């Protein structure tokens, strides 16, 4: 404790230099926090994605292999399944082709939302199941286009309906939020039966089925059982959990690990040079003062730790500051990936790195200070 004032005055001996080192370290850790934090955070978000929610889609692809609706009853017969829901997807736009809206057609059966990642208010959920043309839109899209409950909105699609028109009209009865791994912001939930009966071609098919299983540990077995139903048929299926799909999405990003490691290493290498040089310089300038300290009875070890702790304090404070700043990007990133937040493990790693940085850059000057010979040091004055 008695050393605290001494360390403090050591830090502020040259305020300009300390502030610059502080800023340099802080900036480096902003970058570390953003890159490493996003990388680890995305992996955490994948791990948090639901493994008990399965998607049954065509084995070849997601887009064209429409599955027959008849598969619904077959999948229901598979044991350990809580709920099966058919889902049809089709693209559309509102007013201008740039304003894309993905139409998700579902059946508003009892408890249907259990097989989805959507959150809807109960009264709006009830309103959605009452009318065939009812629709729920994402809060984001409702706000952007100024849609209110009761509005009739026309969406233009590439699917013709029986009125020989490409325009589909929906009545908005509420809004929803999506907690899927990467929820699209422009989505509209519509009634499958209304859509299927009104369209001209491909009737009686769905894009995929959502399946909620009763026991998450049995999810893989259930998925295999579902895929066995259609083996060797013209519509073979592939069943994957939402978590597996999220994992694949992350792999699509590709060489992220390499990039993050390369940049972080370059930043830390450059930083190490800066801090090490400054510490060296600081000790050199302070040679007479350190000699005086030794003259009045400070041990070699005390001087060694004085220098070391000084560096650790500056680096930790700066790193904490930088990491705190880097958390500012997470609210923005969380709009794209649900639940993305600064992982505590990244903060811990960052602070540990800061200590290591201080120790490495202060080691040589601290040893030099400890070995200082009082007579020669004082003689240099």
């Amino acid at each position, binding site marked *: 404790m008695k050393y605290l004032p001494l360390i403090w005055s050591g830090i502020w001996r040259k305020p300009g230099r300390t502030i*610059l080192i502080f800023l340099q370290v802080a900036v480096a850790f902003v*970058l570390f926090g953003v890159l490493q934090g996003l990388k680890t955070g995305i992996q955490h978000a994948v791990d948090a994605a639901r493994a008990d929610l399965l998607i049954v889609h065509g084995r*070849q692809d997601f887009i064209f292999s429409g599955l027959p609706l008849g598969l619904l009853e077959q999948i229901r017969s598979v044991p350990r399944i809580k709920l099966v829901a058919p889902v049809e997807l089709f693209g559309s736009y509102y007013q201008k082709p740039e304003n894309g809206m993905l139409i998700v057609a579902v059946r508003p059966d009892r408890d249907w939302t259990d097989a989805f990642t959507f959150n809807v208010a109960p009264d709006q959920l009830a309103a959605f199941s009452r009318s065939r043309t009812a629709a729920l839109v994402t809060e984001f899209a409702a706000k952007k286009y100024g849609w209110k409950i009761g509005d009739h909105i026309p969406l233009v699609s590439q699917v013709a309906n029986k009125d020989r028109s490409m325009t589909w009209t929906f009545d908005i009865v509420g809004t929803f939020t999506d907690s899927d791994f990467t929820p699209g912001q422009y989505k509209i939930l519509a009634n499958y039966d209304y859509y299927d009966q009104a369209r001209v071609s491909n009737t009686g098919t769905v894009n995929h089925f959502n399946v909620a299983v009763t026991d998450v540990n049995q999810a893989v077995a259930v998925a295999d059982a579902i895929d066995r139903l259609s083996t060797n048929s013209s519509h073979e299926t592939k069943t994957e959990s939402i978590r597996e799909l999220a994992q*694949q999405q992350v792999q699509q990003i590709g060489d992220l690990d390499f990039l993050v490691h*390369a940049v972080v290493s370059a930043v830390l290498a450059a*930083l190490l040079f800066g801090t090490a040089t400054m510490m060296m310089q600081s000790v050199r300038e302070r040679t007479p003062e350190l000699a005086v300290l030794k003259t009045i009875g400070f041990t070699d070890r005390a001087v060694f730790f004085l220098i070391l702790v000084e560096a650790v304090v500056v680096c930790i404070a700066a790193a904490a500051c930088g990491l705190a700043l880097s958390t500012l990007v997470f609210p923005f990133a969380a709009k794209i990936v649900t639940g993305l937040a600064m992982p505590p493990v990244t903060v811990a790693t960052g602070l540990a790195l800061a200590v290591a940085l201080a120790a490495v850059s202060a080691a040589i000057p601290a040893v030099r200070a400890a070995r200082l010979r009082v007579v020669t040091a004082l003689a240099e004055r």
Partner: protein
Amino acid sequence: MRGSVLTIFVGVTCTVAVLVSMLAMGTGARQQAEGDVHDDEVMVQAQGAQGGFDSNISRDQMVTLRDLPGIDRDKDGEPRVAGIVFVPFEGHRRGTGRRVFFPLIGSSDVKFELRPPAHLTEGRLFRPGLHEIITTNACVRQFDGFGLGARREVRGVNWTVVGHYDQGQSLECVVLTDAETVMSLFNRNGFNRITVRLKAPSDFAAFNRALEANPALKLEAKPAREQVEADMKQFKGLLNFVSYFIGSIMAIGATFGAVNSLYSIVDARRRELATLRAIGFGSGAVVAATLAESILLALPGALLGAGLAWLLFHDMAVSPFGFSFRLDVTPRLAEIGIAWALVMGFIGGLLPAQRAARMPVTTALRAT
């Protein structure tokens, strides 16, 4: 002193190396996407279609479109128009076995797809109706099971790989066959896209006017280059944003380091600087000299950084966000990196130069 110089050098080197290599991704992606574009080609899709997959162009529309003005004709007088249909095709990455989808392209006129510089390198062309495919050499390198004679199953039908071809710049895996075979297998009655070759790029206006004037054709046309640029815009914007974001933060950090180093360089030289002032150099000259020194100190780091980026990453194949391309470290990027370093040197030198110029001559001369 040596330490201070080294700090500036290493800081600038790392910053420039990272900035240049990251920008090289954007340049590489663009270079590849636009390298194979022919200026006389036009892409046509259904009005308002979002990307190609939900665009549907009927055969009737195709017939009408063939007679529009401006379209080039071959020696038999046939208009050069190709209907394209694409469906997803599953592949497994070499090594990792990771599943990836890319389009299986059915073209009604294979000459379009194999227009030079694209050319067959191995095997032969597919024969229509026989479920034969040809693939780019990139497929063979990136995925399993694309060797000559390999069989791939799509919709319960076995397709045989009968040829390999090169696309020119592109590293994308493309699997090619004839449109009719794909359409009958997938019960499709229309194309996703039509590619048209004009007599000259300048004929686009006439072609587009005729297209828009025909009420039976609810189609929209774009020159191929514009279409590719639009497709790339978002991706390239993202890459460049990330590059400059990281590059800027690193530059700020390195500049702080440079300021600190220059301060100690100036401090160590107080007597020399004071002597200069004493023998008649003005403070302007001292500022200029310090700034020049700072900028010159940044320069070798910039050169080494750009050089390292080139040595380590030029031509390296990467595949972020499902795109595959090679990093391209161009002289232009090296220029950006060097400019970046000079700005760092300049800004880093400003405060120390001021201190050097403001130092009272008498006290500085007495300094040890």
